């Protein structure tokens, strides 16, 4: 099964304001986007378990015209807080990279 990092063109994280982390998965083609979207591998509950947050704290949206999936969740602590490890929130994407995407037979080669 291909991994997300083999199918996505961009996997990035960033602050959305000082209290929220947002992750964007962007695909170079409609086909790759549809493959990942339709596989059902990327869900709020999967993301919640990967990041150890409550599922109710995860907002997951499909943005078809951008071939993108957006995931937002609270930061562990606010940006720049004494205990923060990532002020820009720019390096919080790695847990997503290895998600395996089930491909329908005859699909992705």
């Amino acid at each position, binding site marked *: 099964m291909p991994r997300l990092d083999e199918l996505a063109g961009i996997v990035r994280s960033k602050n959305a304001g000082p209290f929220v982390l947002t992750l964007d998965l962007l695909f170079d083609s409609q086909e790759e986007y549809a493959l990942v979207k339709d596989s059902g591998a990327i869900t709020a509950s999967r993301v919640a378990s990967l990041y150890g947050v409550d599922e109710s704290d995860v*907002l997951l949206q499909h943005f078809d015209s951008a071939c993108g999936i957006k995931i937002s969740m*609270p930061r562990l602590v606010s940006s720049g807080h004494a205990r923060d490890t990532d002020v820009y929130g720019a390096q919080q994407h790695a847990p997503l990279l290895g998600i395996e995407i089930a491909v329908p037979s005859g699909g992705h080669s």
Partner: protein
Amino acid sequence: MVRAFSATGNLGYGFPTTSLENALVEPPTFLGVDAGSTDPGPYYLGDGKAFVSRASCKRDTRLLLRAALQHSIPLVIGSAGGTGSNVGVDWLFEIIEEISREDDLHFRIAVIRAEPGRDKLGALLRQGSIHSLTGAPGLTPRRLEDAARIVAMMGPEPIQDALSRGADVVVAGRCSDAALFAAVPLSKGVPAAVAWHAGKIIECGAAIAIPKSSDCLIAHLETDHFVLECPNPEKRIRRENVAAHTMYENANAFLLHEPGGILDASSAVFEQIDDRRVKVYGATFERTQPYTVKLEGVQRAGYRCITIAGTRDPKLIAIIDEYLASIKVELDRKVSDIYEDEADYEVGFRTYGKSGVMSEREFKQELPYELGLVIDVVAPSQLMANDILALARTLAMHSHFPGRLCNAGNLAFPFSPSDVQTEPVYEFTVNHTVELEDPFELFPIEIRKL
């Protein structure tokens, strides 16, 4: 109808002079540039410092000022000084004054402040007009009082007013990035959905263009669409990047909460015209009542001292969490010995190579062959932070651990002196919305002649 020009992602990040010259061949309706962000964290608002150098900011400002005055088109700068606070506005104003003297340029400049007084905010809080955004702690009169600085994010209205009163240049305090670019188009009758969506895309300069580097971007706004183009002929724009930028740095992919309304881009269409141009239409803008703007504020959390070290000892690396936990206990004991109950401090042992980046959200378990360690102490005074860090460093260097063979020292310090005192530490305590009776309420406008 309107040609909007965005100079660069942030005033001071630079742009090629040739891009500006190309853009001026058919002069834009206005020149705009965003100068601020909360991205670099709470320190800059706390201490009122810019996060770009004065020299780079002056270079960009000089080029834009000359272009604007030469072509008699307005120049709008938002979130001056990086934070849009009063010191930020004054910092940029002083740079502009200096350029005006050096280059013998004379013009009318509007200064719009965005740092409302605490009395005013206190009254709004008592009225129940202030509400927390996701994740922010509730606002209390105490928090309001303890904040080092609080800014409000203006919408387009104060900028429009300043321009209608004859300002050639507008230096605005904290301002919605999109509002800064929507102000002129809205005044010229461009529909709100087009003006706000274009504003959102171009506020980052040529971030959507490839190859990527700090550069200018132009949006041609019409009544039912806008077209994006980079004045640098070497740059292309792909529709996917434009679409992706719509959802950049917002929690919600489609909905953008702005002063006075919500931009909904869920039905937006992005069309590739050619290699260099993308056409966008189809977003909607819904006006909301009451008129609401965002507040941002920070509070001082203390003073910090840090040290950087590494270990190459496999036995220590194998038990590093337990080792550091035991040191923390010993440190607490020593600190209370010295300071009794006065030391309200925080120590962090940041292990790079093991959860240093993701902290408790890390999922990997493998141990590295060497480990970087940053010890940081935040305490109520700089002296106390320095002293407690020295204690923590000595403990980390010389404490025993099971199986220890390296009894001359557990850590490699790359520097002497090993300890670095940093600037004060701040923390975001205000990330709220406030309902206003009118869009000018918190944003006094002053027009001066230079």
